[in-house]
């Protein structure tokens, strides 16, 4: 009985931590630049909050997180041009969790990602890892 409760507790904690993984990884890898509320920094760093880019470039998002990007991009009508570093050590599960955190927070209610969809996107930029 006691052992059963212990297993349940551990399982619940495991589950809870997993659930918050997107938020934790966001704080660790993204919030320095995109800010805790996804607002970005004026015309220097684009917002994630209510960003049309998340919908219009949905198919590129996993690769952008993994490898970063540079050059001009337009988000909500504003042109940004600041280098974004990649997070090459993140795995597909972690990237999925970050994406789903972004897609469902900061006022966003975009379609969630499955790990399969992220995997498929990452296949397109796998060559950059070599």
């Amino acid at each position, binding site marked *: 009985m006691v052992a059963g409760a212990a297993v349940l507790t551990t399982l619940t904690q495991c589950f809870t931590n997993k659930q918050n993984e997107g938020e934790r990884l966001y704080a660790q890898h993204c*919030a*320095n*630049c995109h*800010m805790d509320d996804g607002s970005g*920094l*004026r*015309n*220097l*760093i684009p917002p994630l909050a209510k960003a049309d880019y998340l919908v219009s470039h949905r198919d590129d998002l996993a690769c952008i997180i993994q490898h970063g990007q540079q050059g001009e991009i337009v988000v909500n009508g504003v042109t940004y041009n*600041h*280098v974004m*570093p990649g997070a090459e050590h993140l795995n597909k599960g972690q990237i999925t969790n970050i994406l789903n955190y972004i897609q469902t927070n900061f006022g966003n209610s975009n379609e969630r990602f499955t790990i399969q969809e992220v995997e498929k996107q990452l296949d397109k930029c796998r060559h950059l890892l070599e």
Partner: protein
Amino acid sequence: MNSNNIRQFILALAASAALYACSGNESEATLPILGHRDVVEQEVNGKMVADTVYQQIPDFSFTDQDSQQVTAKTFEGKIYVTDFFFTTCPTICPKMKSQMLRVYEQYKDNPQVVLLSHTIDPKHDTVAVLKEYAERLNVSSDKWHFVTGEKDSIYSIAQKYMVTAMEDEQEAGGFVHSGAFILVDQNRHIRGVYDGTQPDQVDKLLKDIPVLLNEQHQKK
């Protein structure tokens, strides 16, 4: 005095008592002078008198985003908040800048308060790079100077502000530096050090600036 007036009078009295209680501690009403200090003995009218000499930011000369020279003279009669950063910094800098913008917005119409950000990567952060950075933040150059200069001068003045700044290939972005905001008075004494990545520390800075302005005002 009718009863309404009396009630108002009592309320006002209670309010001022409460205010007095809050500001009653005199050490809270002025800011300390930070940094090292020396006691110097001087002869005044034939008597030896001990005098405390506080650490002062030395003269400097840097170039801002408009290619204008920025020296200690630029800040004469003003107080300023300063920090160290670099434009390609992937770690704490954007948060620092977002917090510094709070100071900017609150004091943009007060010429007594100026902001000074030093790049610690002068090789990359040229005048043109700083210009674009400032423009993208949409801030005015006479209120917020982004400066570059000789690397050694920047790193050595960082030490005077009690800020860590150095190159380190192990660090993300290639530099290690603290996220401190330093509040400097018109005598170039350091009056406060705040963590510019923490909103509550910047709240404290925003409360300390009027205290310092008030002190300068009373001295005049």
